[in-house]
């Protein structure tokens, strides 16, 4: 009497690999919420450095913009400007400058959604960079400055219209 060979798994079938939860084992359980509060407090202890850090971030954005000179901004050459804008977006709010994050977010949106053959309008890009620099002079946590919020709304609208038309 012969024994039929055990069926071999089909190599095309995906494998679900369940591994022991070593992270939980090493941590010992969920992190208590008080640890998040302590971490927030620790971040606040760095706040005195934030003005300098955001200044450096905005300077990098300006330098990336200046480096483009009058060259049309396209998908081929936007990388450094986009990286700098993304950094300003990412760090502004963390450093207590939420308006910088919002202006930078608008610039990021313009650059990341730039259609393949399109050129970003220089004036609109420059207006974003200038506005971000200007916001640095506002009180750090201001989100309600009427001029800045009006300007932001205008720029977001211009970005939206540009992307719609191209």
């Amino acid at each position: 009497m012969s024994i039929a060979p055990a069926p071999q798994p089909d190599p095309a079938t995906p494998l679900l690999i369940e591994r022991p939860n070593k992270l939980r084992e090493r941590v010992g359980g969920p992190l208590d919420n008080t640890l998040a509060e302590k971490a927030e407090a620790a971040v606040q202890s760095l706040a005195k450095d934030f003005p300098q850090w955001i200044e450096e971030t905005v300077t990098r954005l300006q330098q990336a913009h200046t480096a483009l000179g009058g060259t049309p901004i396209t998908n081929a050459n936007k990388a450094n400007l986009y990286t700098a804008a993304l950094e300003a977006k990412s760090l502004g709010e963390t450093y207590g400058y939420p308006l910088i994050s919002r202006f930078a977010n608008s610039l990021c949106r313009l650059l990341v959604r730039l259609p393949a053959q399109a050129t970003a309008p220089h004036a609109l890009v420059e207006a974003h960079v200038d506005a971000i620099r200007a916001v640095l002079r506002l009180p750090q946590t201001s989100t309600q400055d009427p001029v800045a919020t009006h300007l932001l709304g205008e720029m977001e609208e211009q970005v939206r219209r540009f992307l719609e038309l191209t």
Partner: protein
Amino acid sequence: MLSDKLFVDSPNNNEPGMGSLSRLNILIVDDSAHIRRLLLSMLTPMGAQNIFEARTLAQARTVLNTKTLDLAIIDWMLDDPAGDGMALVTEIRQSPLETVTYLPIIMMTGHTERENIELARDMGVTEFLAKPFTAKNLHARLNMLIESPRPFVKSRSYFGPDRRRREHSPIEGLERRNTSPRRIRST
């Protein structure tokens, strides 16, 4: 003035214990010294004592090859001509070392468009930390990794954490429709 010293263990005064990161070896990869300092300031009160910093892919590889890590926090956009954070994720998932290939990865990114998140998931990222982030955001992501780890999926076209965090539908696309995954338990 920020220190650019790399691969240093962070001093920590917290008592090691339950629900603490004190026993973890954590890699932070970010070209921004400010962000690394922010992360250190957030992780240290959570008990982290062994944090290894890298600002380039080469430095990250050195840590990966010399330390047994429990977690990596990687920035997508690295100012490194050798590649970005996603290139490092690919290297990690393709590593022949089991301790590296299954490493939980938190990807920090300002690229929060849906297509970018999907791309990163397809490359094997475990969790996202959208910039701008707070200590509470980081704390929540860490707890997600600790309490709800994703099983890994290996298919012809993908290897990495289950992209759906579901018990019964781990595979997306055609493969999900045509096949049921085989489950294995790995030690």
